[in-house]
Structures are given as structure tokens and as C-alpha cells.
């Protein structure tokens, strides 16, 4: 913060290297942030964004797990569909936006679609890899103990691949978060991405920075508090955190 303030004082006020609308003072940013919180713009935006991502992410997790399980279950599907899914995953989710707008129009569904498509494949690929890398001994042991069919899936295969699934969910989350911001910036009427765009349209660099900070903080909080906790829990259980 201090370095930022010093850089601002020197660069903008003293030497006049940059214009004030290019490089904001941290004080202005905090002031704007405070203002945004005070008139509830940011609160409304966060709630709108949260609604979208929760729904979109939930859809993508369900879809991703289904796709992953189906691929693992049928070998011919695995051989044929895996390269396609890998290809689809490398496509940045924002590239789906024009497609989504043509399908759904400029509305919620389009953004939801982009979020879902952004993380579905990450989840599916993680699940598939997780199941493929299970120690075969677990399955042999479970089979000799009378487990089969759905029971072996529920009691052995899923818990055994849980570490991989959680890291897939985490990756899916970050994809979904990015997709959400991209989608909102392009086509939303409210939400964090839209507030960010309004900042740009008004040439209000302080607002742009303020919203960026909010986005970063939210991302880190979810990552650390939710996924970090789950991962930590699993690692402890499995004895992985003691190298």
C-alpha cells in the first residue's frame, strides 16, 4: 500500500508521468470501495454474481461428475471422447460466449451456460484421472469382501479417488469464476463484472481497481476457506501431509 501510494505521489503528482485516470491513488480506491459498499452497489453485485456462480457451478459439477463416470464406465467412450473433452477444456470458456448468446440471447442463461461449460470438463477430467489411478489392490480387496456394482463405486471407487476429485472441483471453481467475470463483463446488467465495466465506461480507474480487489479477495476466500479446508481434511485422513 505504501509503495503504491509513493509510486502514485511520484508518478502522478510530482513528475506527472501518468494521468490520474490511469494510475489511481490507493486512498481513492479505498474511498471508492467504501462508497460502493455504502450505496450497496457492490453488495447487490456480489449477490447477483454469487447466485450465478453457485447455480452455474452446481450444474457443472453434476454434469462433470456424470460425464466423468460415464467415460470411466465405458471403455470405447473413453477412447473416443477423451481427446474431444481435452480439446474442449483447452478452449477458454469466454469463447463459448458468442455461441451462448446466439443460443440463449443476452440473458442469465447465456452466462450460466458459459460458467457451466467452463468447469464441467475440468471436473470430468479430474474424476476420470482419479478413478484410473486408484490402487488396484483396493478394488481386489473390496471384491473379495463381497462388494460389487454400485456398492463398490460408492464405498471404494469414489472415496479412493476423492483427493483427485476435490482438486478437480477446485480447478473447476477457478474456471467457473473466470468464466463468470468474462460473461458478466460482456453481457450482464448487474454483477461484479458489470460494475467493473461501468468503471471502465466512466473512465473511473478507482472503481475498476476497487472491484478487482473485491474479485481477488472473494476468489481467495472461497479457495482457502472452502476447498482448502476440504483438502486439508482429506490429506490428514490419508496421512499425506506428513512427507
Amino acid at each position: 500500500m505504501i509503495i503504491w501510494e509513493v509510486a502514485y505521489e511520484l508518478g502522478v503528482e510530482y513528475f506527472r508521468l501518468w494521468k490520474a485516470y490511469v494510475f489511481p491513488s490507493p486512498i481513492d480506491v479505498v474511498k471508492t470501495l467504501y462508497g460502493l459498499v455504502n450505496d450497496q452497489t457492490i453488495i447487490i453485485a456480489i449477490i447477483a454474481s454469487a447466485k450465478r456462480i453457485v447455480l452455474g457451478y452446481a450444474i457443472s459439477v453434476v454434469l462433470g461428475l456424470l460425464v466423468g463416470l460415464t467415460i470411466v464406465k465405458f471403455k470405447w467412450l473413453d477412447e473416443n471422447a477423451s481427446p474431444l473433452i481435452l480439446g474442449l477444456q483447452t478452449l477458454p470458456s469466454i469463447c463459448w460466449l458468442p455461441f451462448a448468446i446466439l443460443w440463449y440471447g443476452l440473458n442469465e442463461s447465456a452466462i450460466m451456460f458459459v460458467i457451466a461449460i467452463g468447469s464441467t470438463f475440468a471436473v470430468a477430467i479430474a474424476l476420470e484421472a482419479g478413478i484410473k489411478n486408484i490402487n488396484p489392490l483396493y478394488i481386489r480387496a473390496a471384491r473379495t469382501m463381497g462388494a460389487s456394482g454400485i456398492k463398490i463405486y460408492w464405498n471404494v471407487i469414489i472415496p479412493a479417488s476423492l483427493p483427485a476429485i476435490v482438486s478437480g472441483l477446485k480447478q473447476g471453481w477457478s474456471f467457473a469464476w473466470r468464466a463468470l467475470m468474462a460473461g458478466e463483463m460482456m453481457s450482464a446488467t448487474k454483477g461484479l463484472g458489470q460494475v467493473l465495466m461501468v468503471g471502465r465506461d466512466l473512465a473511473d480507474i478507482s472503481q475498476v481497481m476497487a472491484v478487482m480487489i473485491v474479485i481477488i479477495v472473494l476468489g481467495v476466500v472461497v479457495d482457502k476457506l472452502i476447498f482448502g479446508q476440504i483438502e486439508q481434511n482429506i490429506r490428514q485422513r490419508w496421512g499425506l501431509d506428513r512427507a
Partner: protein
Amino acid sequence: MKMSIKVEDVSKRFITKHSDTETLSKVNIEFKPGEFICILGPSGCGKSTLLNIIAGLEQATAGRVTLNGKQVTGPGPDRVVMFQEAALFPWLNVIDNVEFGMKMAGVEPKMRRERALKYLKMVHLTNFQHAFIHELSGGMRQRVALARALTFDSEVLLMDEPFAALDSQTKMLLQIELQQIWLKTKKTILFVTHNVEEAAILADRVVVMAANPGGIKKEFQIQVARPRQSGDVDLAYLMNNIMQELKTEVEKVAKAEYDNDWDIQKNPILPDINDNLGSGV
């Protein structure tokens, strides 16, 4: 009624791109109810394959295995297997691991816990019932695996070198305890090992397997009072006899694996004690 296992003309071939190996060739063997049998053989003689076929984890190329006259087609809780690694599930704690089989069988939770505790007590691990698997030593893990195997109340217990990865003190303790548990439960135990001493200590009958192709070479009845321990004089005599049988098989396997110029008799590191008896006096 006690279970009897019959292995009839079982053969197993492994065919890959580069090779066609006959691992087992027309194996015939019968296990009497309540018998403790050790299958002894050099590595690669197909003893684990035989156990896997009996367990139903692998299919025989020819022949059949019957349990009480019914043909074995797949794995099942009437023939529980203990592996060299404990194969416990790291996402469950000790007691849940022991309960796993009963859970699969649909036993209600209260009953499950009761029986799991009974068998944990038998292997002396009730203090660790809530520990996670990574917190246990290798010997403790095998005890948990043994408790888990006992909960099935199956007449047959298949053990695939379960003590091979343990240190010798732990192994000794577990050998004594396994004998006690066997005397208590009177299960039919099929125990695969490559350790002559272990086979002699544990078994009523030691079956020595031949290698390339795998088959039964010779059987030894061991009628020594139990509980037996290593260092028993009567066992030492039997062990020597078994060792003689095993040695030729070990040599056969080694010859197949090493270069042509390898020979067990050539260039021995230690001279034969009979060659120079008294020469240093």
C-alpha cells in the same frame, strides 16, 4: 458343515505379445476342512496365481475349483483373502475398515460395531479403533486386515504372503497369534509363502510347488505339537527336508532368469563344509 476346497486339473497360461507362459499345469489338490496348508515355492512358480484362482480373482485357463461341490466363478466373502499389503482403506479409520465387509453384507450398524470390536480384541488392537491407517505400523496394519478377514466368519481364509513385508520380530509374533486364532476358530487356512521356516511353523501340511510349469511337487505332513515357534528341533529336521526339495526348484527358476553361465554350484562363496572337515585342526 465344513467347507472343502477341491482344485481339479487347474491350468493357467499367460499369453502376451512376446511370450506364452504356462504358469500352472494341471494342478490337483484338495483341502480338508479345518486344515492349515502352506503352499511353498520359489518366486514365479505360480503359487500366488493358484491362490488368486481359488479366490476367484483370476480365471483358470482350464480345470475348475470347487467349494463344497460348487464351482468357483468369482470372488466372494466365503473365501476371504489377506494380501501381502494390508489393503486397508485410508479413508476409513480402523474400526470402519474392520466393519467394511459386514457393511457390504448389510449387517446393521450396532451389530457390526459389536462384532468388529470382538475381532479387534482378538488381534489386540482395541486401543487403536479410531486411529487412521497411516498412523499404524506395518504389523498393526496386518492385524487389522486379519481382524477384518475374521469378521466374515468364512470357513476358508486365503493368505497371500501376508507377513512377507514385516520385520522378523513382528512376523514371529503374528505367526504365534495366527496359530492361536486358527486353533480357536478352526478355519481352513491356505497360506502362500516362500519362507520354509514360516511354512513349517504354521502348517499341518506343506505343499511344495514346482516351477516352469507350476505344479505340485511334494507334500509334507507336519505333525509337531502346537503352538510351534522358530528354533524348534523337530521343525529343523523337517525344514531341512523341505529345503532339499525346494532348492532344485529355486535353481530352476534362477537358471531361467539369469544368463546361461550362472550355476548354483559353481564359484560358491562359502566352501562346502564336508570338503575340508578337520583340515584346519
